[in-house]
């Protein structure tokens, strides 16, 4: 896990997606709901994609169809960017608190 400021304000972190079926419905709901709790602009990008995606949009996050084993990159910009990224990465690391798997 590394914290690398990419420009003036945006910070970025990445985490390995270990959830068995990837970024599917329940994880996506949790991730976008959590993202919406922060003022920061938060973007997500799996390794296998070129473009950043709005991490607050369930439709867009699901459309990434991110599977187990890809690395997820998060980028945040705004006053609470630091804690937003902690939360995002934490959620993925805790396997989305998904006891079912």
């Amino acid at each position, binding site marked *: 896990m590394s914290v690398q400021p990419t420009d003036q304000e945006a910070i970025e972190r990445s985490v390995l997606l270990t959830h*068995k*079926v*990837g970024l*599917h*419905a*329940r994880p*996506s*709901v949790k991730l*976008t*709901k959590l993202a919406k709790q922060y003022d920061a602009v938060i973007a997500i990008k799996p390794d296998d994609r070129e473009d950043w995606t*709005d991490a607050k*949009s*369930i*439709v*867009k996050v*699901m*459309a990434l*169809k991110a*599977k187990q084993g890809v690395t997820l990159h998060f980028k945040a910009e705004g006053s609470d960017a630091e804690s937003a990224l902690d939360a995002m990465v934490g959620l993925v690391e805790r396997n989305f608190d998904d006891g*079912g*798997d």
Partner: protein
Amino acid sequence: MAETERQILRLEGKRASGGLVVGPAHLLGDIIVRDQTPAGTSDDEISKLRSAIATASEALETLAGTSGDMGGEILGFQIALLEDDALIEPAVAEIEAGASAAKGWRDALDEQIADYDASDDDYFRARAEDLTDLRDRVLSILTGADFGDGGMPDGAVLIGRELTPSRFLAVDWHRAGGLALAGGSPSSHVAMLARARGLAMAVGLGDGISALHSGEPVVLDADAGRVISGLGQDALEQARRDVAARARQAEDAKRLLPLPATTRSGQRVITTVNVDDPASLSEVPVGHSDGIGLTRTEFLFHDRADLPDEEEQAAVYRRLLDWADGRPVTIRTLDAGGDKPIPGLTLDGEGNPFLGLRGLRLSLARSDVFEVQLRALARVSVHGNLKIMFPMVTAPWELDRARELMEAALAAVSKEGVTVGEPAIGMMVEVPAAAIEIERFDADFFSIGSNDLIQYVTASSRDSAEVSDLYDPLNPAVLRLITRIADHGLKTGKEVSVCGDMAAEATTLKALLDCGVRSVSMGYAALAQAKATIADYVTEP
């Protein structure tokens, strides 16, 4: 007359449930909005869409509120989608370019559905269903079209692309004549439900169904898996005469209903009925059957997003026992999973759900849910001839474990002061590992689930139209296993019955009798014909 000049359209598909129907076509919600032109300005249409989405959201919120934790979470996904502007933006853009609210919404969602459909990952592909549900929920609000049978004329042939079991069950099939689907499969659960009701149903008719119009007379020849429209008066009259002739034939067979089924050589065959909806029993005279051979408890509670509590379950089971009036009532514990997901209970995203956590496997993994059902069964166990059956048993220890849990439930309920009986404990035989080594299973009775057995023996999905030729009930390997199980029953004196679709069709029923099966269970609608088939059957020397 314009009618005779109309072009005759023949759509060829597959038989899912036999029958012949002439009636007005009635297109199900998802396709009738195709040509709608906007009624107002694009701003009007956009606010119409937004308010329809808000209404749909509210309906989902209400549903989620009564669905328990995990069920609510699944619906939460649909709600989150509806709250996301990214879902609505493409629709808004199309409406601004002149489309109606319904068309804009439909096109936008169809594009996303196609995107999920094209995924190489089963899980993501399955999400197309959530989007389809959302699409239709909002469309039905926009157009006033019902999810199910709204505005349907009597005797209508319902036409649609696909139909989920829950939507199927929402339709008043007493009024409808038949069902014709562009997609679907003869071995889907909707097809099973149709057969149980004796409802004519054809599947796999293809995109040609979009050329049909609500209200135009069509002939559904479900035996041939065909729908014909554009026929002239003479041809329609002829078809109606054929329908009447078949009805007379079926009436004839009905005379056998009150009699016990015996072969021509006088051998008794136990004929019981399958029950998926206790309400349907009000139309089944108890004297027509030898009891209930299969109760699919997963369908008893189809109209709710959560499982009912012990009290409610016990009430339903009690009703079945009261109806049977001392005859055996076989209740199968929850058989969720496979193609019967239950929100909040079955696993999301299994790569191959038919080989995954389903049936008894799921019940043993979710003992909290299982225990509620076993306690409900224990509570009614003294009120009749209750037989409890576990689905998808693969290894003997699973059956032993389930039996222990059942005995524990009986003991616990008894300790609370409720008198309990001694229900027989049986198992479904549908996994080849169980069928081949049937001697190793300590069950009081066996019931062959032919649909799953065929699927597992032929490695051909019951839901796939592409391999439906290989999904063959008469495959010698299938028949050999059934013979083996029937022999085991004969040797041990334990009952062996068949409760799958093989019991309901004349050809396969004869094959079962050839295998030595002398107990069959089927939907009531198939019982008269089955008794006629049995009465004709000469027991082989």
